[in-house]
């Protein structure tokens, strides 16, 4: 089986179908990450996944093959989550409506979704990456583009909120 980095190389050389293999390989991972970040919103998670794959293709040339593809993909997905959340909140601020614009589909561990709801967007991201995906502090710092110290303090704040 070809590695992600080899598939990236082949995609960049013009074999677009290889990107399809990469999409299929990581579709579940990105969807799962989206579900966890959005506290079980299936539609939102699918949007995040789709936007992430499109953005990954757009910036594929800038991928450093010395780094892990999955980690790079996670960083892009986190950024997509932030962008889409901002768009969603802008939309909600323009139109005052009683119901949310999407229906949460709590198909997974509802206990976890309820647990992370009080957390802010960045705390939720960092908490999920640290405790569910078991990323190291340095890796999270790289993914979210923050300093390690800031990541640590955000984790402590998140844990305080959850206690």
């Amino acid at each position, binding site marked *: 089986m070809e590695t992600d980095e080899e598939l990236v190389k082949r995609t960049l050389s013009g074999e*677009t*179908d290889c*990107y*399809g293999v990469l*999409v*299929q390989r990581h*579709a*579940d991972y*990105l*969807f*799962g990450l989206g*579900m*966890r970040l959005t506290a079980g919103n299936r539609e939102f*998670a*699918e949007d995040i*996944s*789709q936007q992430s*794959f*499109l953005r990954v*293709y757009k910036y594929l040339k800038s991928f450093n093959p010395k780094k892990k593809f999955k980690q790079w993909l996670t960083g892009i997905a986190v950024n997509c989550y932030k962008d889409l959340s901002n768009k969603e909140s802008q939309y909600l601020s323009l139109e005052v409506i009683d119901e949310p614009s999407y229906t949460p589909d709590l*198909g*997974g*561990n509802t*206990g*976890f979704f309820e*647990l992370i709801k009080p957390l802010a967007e960045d705390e939720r991201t960092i908490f999920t990456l640290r*405790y*569910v995906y078991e990323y190291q502090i340095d890796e999270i710092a790289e993914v979210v583009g923050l300093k390690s110290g800031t990541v640590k303090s955000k984790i402590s704040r998140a844990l305080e909120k*959850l*206690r």
Partner: protein
Amino acid sequence: MNQLEAVIEKEKGISYSQRDKDLFSSHILILIHQEQESKKFIRKLCLILFLAVGTLSLLFSQISEIANDFTVGLSDAITGDILTTVVFSYGLLFALLALLKKPDFIFS
């Protein structure tokens, strides 16, 4: 804290799967292809616009010369060959029409 750990442990055990992965993957590839095509189209459009603007600006810079040449040519033509040709053509046309009105004269 134990309850928190239990919820996290449970979450780790859950795997989420994207619906219709084949369809999803094809959809992504189609979107990428569409974007590439629209970029190509915009690039072509820009090139055509650039060429069109270039050609037009060249034409406009020489428009007075072209207009002068055209006017001079037209006045020469009016005073010369075209006037004779027109008179001859209309004359011939009227003669033919007159003959057509008298078929006996032709076929007898």
